[in-house]
């Protein structure tokens, strides 16, 4: 199997629903290496590929339900 086929099982990408996001900051607090906040408290996704387990916790804890996983 060609090497590129392995990339299909790469971790999914964490995305922010920007309309739903109201700057609680829970995501940055849980994923300090991957998400930082701008001066108004909105997330800057620095490293979108996150371990799925950790991502699911952040998704669950976001009070605004503004985080979701996407394929790329």
């Amino acid at each position, binding site marked *: 199997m060609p090497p590129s086929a392995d990339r299909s099982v790469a971790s999914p990408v964490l995305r922010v629903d920007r309309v739903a996001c109201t*700057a*609680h*900051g829970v995501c940055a607090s*849980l994923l300090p290496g991957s998400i930082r906040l701008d001066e108004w408290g909105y997330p800057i996704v620095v490293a979108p590929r996150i371990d799925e387990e950790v991502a699911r916790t952040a998704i669950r804890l976001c009070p605004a339900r503004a985080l979701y996983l996407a394929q790329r």
Partner: protein
Amino acid sequence: MNEALWYASRAAGIASIVLLTAVVVLGTVVAGRRRPHDDSATVAAATHRWLSLATLAFIGAHVATAVGETYVSIDLVSAVVPFTSSYATLWVGLGTLAVDLLVAVTVTSLLRHRIAERTWRAVHWATYALWGFAVVHGVALGTAAEPLLRWTTALCGVVGLGAVLWRVNVTTHDRERRRAVAQQEWS
């Protein structure tokens, strides 16, 4: 035995209203406050969720022991269907109603990511009502012989009401800007 159940029911009841009030206050903090550059929102959100499950346990115990003890007549049906107990129909009924609403809130919260967000939100607003019913239920059914229980419940009422008033009046930069722009022409 029956006396033990009677006391257990009161004890679980007090624990429930105190915990429920704490859960509601934490909920208002999560909803109304934005201090995103520290961990307080995460602590508040996680504690709110975790504490609500603990509250359910105590409410479960409170209802089970209240049904089980025979000093006053509250059967299983009236623990589920509001305003059907022969004892203190209105006050017990408010408690039952509160639990029914809490079940709806709990189920929708556990299934939050499987249902529409607006559905979860609409049901979650019922927490204010159910908390109010629980406080009235507790104050009304607290007997004069144990004023501590009544006063504790009343104190929960004051604290919770304070949190609700704060929540209604507080605003965040995000909320204000959204509101201001939403008033422009968009259709």
